[in-house]
């Protein structure tokens, strides 16, 4: 249902010739005219070099040239204190004390597996992958007072933190997320609204492979049997009895682990989550299915 203005416009258009590139133009102000070099007093054509003379015909000295004396930028020696700092990986710290506090305040549910999403939704960290953040570093401040039995997944931690978590009857593992996967994990709803299939999580880069295959660091790509051995060793080292995880109602929780290619629990790579229709779209094509299982 159109208003009077719309109806008039449509009637006008009905009687006009066909719309083509010949009879349309941009809205005024949408395209700014590019300034052509040197369209000043002499009306251009000199490429900014001015009227005839040596300065028009000569080659110019390099930037920073000081007529022969050692230029400032060469006088001062190099101090590469922050060289490559901009490219280094960052891990946002969350202490065990903070984690205990979040659990006590009900902001994190210890009955569910805890990963990056839990920390972000609890407001403990704000992850921006464009700041080269590669995940969460669980620090050992508050290790003495940590008592919650949790199923925890972080990206960096220390031996004492692992001991504190396992002493309380929990499990901890280190899992790598490439920047795209981390962004998706930190902002899941935003990702689901894009309507894109869940991508496969990439494997860690060369310099991180050693860490993520190390059982003493509880890497997600390490041998489970070696992890069990290391749990016993750590209990001996830090002087506590390793709690029996087979007993109690939390056994099912502690067995949950993501596949190395999985970003979310229960959701596979290749699926599209439709929140409005509350449906999951899965690839039917055999090639696609093979790709997402690779």
């Amino acid at each position, binding site marked *: 249902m159109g208003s009077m203005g719309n109806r008039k416009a449509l009637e006008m258009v009905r009687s006009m010739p066909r719309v083509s590139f010949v009879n349309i133009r941009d809205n005024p102000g949408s395209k700014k005219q590019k300034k052509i070099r040197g369209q000043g007093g002499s009306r251009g054509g000199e490429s900014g070099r001015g009227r005839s003379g040596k300065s028009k015909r000569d080659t110019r000295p390099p930037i920073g040239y000081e007529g022969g004396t050692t230029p400032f930028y060469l006088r001062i020696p190099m101090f590469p204190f922050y060289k490559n700092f901009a490219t280094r990986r960052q891990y946002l710290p969350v202490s065990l004390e903070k984690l205990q506090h979040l659990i006590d305040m009900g902001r994190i549910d210890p009955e569910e597996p805890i990963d990056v999403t839990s920390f972000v939704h609890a407001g403990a960290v704000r992850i921006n992958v464009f700041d080269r953040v590669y995940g969460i570093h669980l620090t050992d401040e508050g290790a003495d007072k940590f008592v919650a039995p949790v199923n925890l997944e972080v990206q960096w931690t220390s031996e004492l933190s692992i001991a504190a978590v396992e002493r309380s009857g929990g499990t901890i593992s280190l899992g790598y997320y490439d920047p795209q996967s981390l962004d998706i994990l930190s902002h899941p709803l935003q990702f689901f609204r894009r309507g894109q299939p869940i991508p496969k999580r990439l494997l860690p880069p060369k310099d991180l492979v050693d860490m993520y295959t190390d059982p003493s660091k509880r890497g997600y790509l390490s041998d489970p049997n070696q992890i069990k051995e290391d749990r016993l060793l750590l209990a001996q*080292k830090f002087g506590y009895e390793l709690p029996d995880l087979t007993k109690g109602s939390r056994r099912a929780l502690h067995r949950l682990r993501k596949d190395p290619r999985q970003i979310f629990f*229960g959701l596979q790579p290749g699926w599209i989550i439709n929140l409005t229709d509350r449906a999951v779209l899965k690839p039917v094509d055999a090639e696609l299915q093979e790709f997402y299982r690779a």
Partner: protein
Amino acid sequence: MFGRVCLLCSLSRPVLSAHLSRTHQLRAFISSYESQYSLNKLYPGSDQDVTKPLDKPSKELFLRLQDDIEEVSETEKFSGFIPIDKLNIKFSKSGGPGGQNVNKVESKVDLRFHLESAEWLPASIRAQIQEKKQTNINAKGELVITSQKTRSQMRNVQDCLQKLRDIIAEVQRTPKEPDENSAAVWRMRQEKSTRERLKQKTIHSRTKTDRQVYADE
């Protein structure tokens, strides 16, 4: 209705109720997705279930924490395993500066156990500790180890246990016997150093004598 799929599991059967039972959800999680790099495929011989303990931990497992132990005999060898429940570990406040934190936090660790009745230690090691570490044993016959090295109670417990393992290793070390030649070599070196010392002393004495000035010169 049949277009809708259970959001939580990979089975595409119709969902009748929005609320699924907890066990169904969790069972689905465990059995859902396996990629090329799943742990089943990377380590086929290992059991992925972290909750299940190892059937048979290797004998040398706990010896990784312990320095070389002399093998007296198969029955007498220390396995490296210390039963924590047999130890009496107490916490108290540490000393030294540190303000409110050191006043309130119980970071000092006191570890003690009755030496004679420690069945987990071979009898030979117990005897050696009794002989060589008398200063660490109290009137009740308990070996006492304390630590307030760090701010953290857990780290201090680790330190106490490390000290215990160091004691076990230390009492088993036999001092190296000097061989036949080395006694003679040592004596010759002693004599040489004495000769050298006396020579320097004589030189110094002459210097001092030369500085003396007599009134009639």
